[in-house]
């Protein structure tokens, strides 16, 4: 199963994860 997130955010938004990285619920994905 997969979850796709699509969202609008300021151009200054930056992901703090990278492809291939394992994540857990509540872990930071990105911030403005």
């Amino acid at each position: 199963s997969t979850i796709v997130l699509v969202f609008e955010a300021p151009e200054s938004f930056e992901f703090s994860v990278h492809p291939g990285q394992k994540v857990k619920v509540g872990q930071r994905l990105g911030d403005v």
Partner: protein
Amino acid sequence: VMDAWTQTPTKWYPLPIAVGALLLVALQYRRKSRRSKEVQLDENGMEIIKLKGPWQVHVLGALPLRNMSRVWGYVNSLELPVWFRPIGFRLYSFAFGCDLDEIEHSDDLTQYVSLGDFFYRKLKDGARPVDPAVLVSPADGRILHLGAITDHKVEQVKGITYSLDALLGIDKDHPPVYVPAMRDPDLSIVDDQEFADINGIEYTLDQLIGTSSPSTSEEVRDPHAPPKKFGKQVDASVVDSDRDLKDALAHDASVALEMGVKTALDRRRSMGGKPVKPGNQLFFTVIYLAPGDYHRFHSPTAWVVEKRRHFVGELFSVSPYMAKRLENLFVLNERVALLGRWKYGFFSMVPVGATNVGSIKVNFDQALRTNLRGKPPPPGTYAEAVYSAASPILNGQPLIPAQEMGGFCLG
């Protein structure tokens, strides 16, 4: 042969110009016809989603994946002998790398009656600390891909893209229409997106609720326009009649405060053909949940879910192996697109089913049923429900970061 190969002199002749020109024309014609075959458009100019990929993909496409998924779900719902449960679940955990210490009933695994029950396990309170960032992970899993969306195309893996409109069901010519919280059963049912039947008289939604749809009146009133949806648009919000209104309003107000009251009360259409706000951009991220992962999903931010679109489709595996080979994988598969807004504008979350986990549950949508028997409708069609009755202030279902939203079940 050896002599001929080594001793025959090579003589080079210039090709006549006409032959070269003919060759170029033939190559160009072949390239053009191949391109036109690759992207086929329907009468609305939308791309027709088809199975594309190497032979392995077509072999898989020929299998009855939906039926296999339901059989898999049935088998895994069978009650296991009590003595076998701890052994079986520990074996499963060892094989798939589950951490039994963080799950509920970790000291008594016999409480999980079947593998399906164990698969949909809950975590202990506090097992997942929530980061204060604006966007947190909605699930345990692996990041498949992420980035910014350009030209309404989402990258599935490097080099393979799919249409954002196909994923979410956004129709540029017929933007989403909001239906306010309605208690009258006649008003709560809207057929074919544009028309509501009240006592035998058909009304357009524009006439009924004053929606300022930018669609032209001819388009809205055309009863022969091919419907993009099937079934009915219903208000699927579950509102407890005994719920204390003050508590509800306080909860909504706290979410509104977190989102920014102005944005929370703003009922403008998110997306629906409109460009993003100046200074903003569309982003995406794809998270893959492996078989051993915790399979419930949570809210990734403070947002309001305004509607869901259920796309009945195939149930291909969504493993990285398939994602690299099968084009339009996330557009072909059964999925539930939850659309809404957060403090920066449009926000959506799309749980996509797979062969082993075809059933998607959404806690605040009891009407949703996925992976049902029967032939799926054509790709691109969907059933829509609106959650406007869930919150009178926010016009949708408000969620706070890391709040449990639902999950994937076996089969």
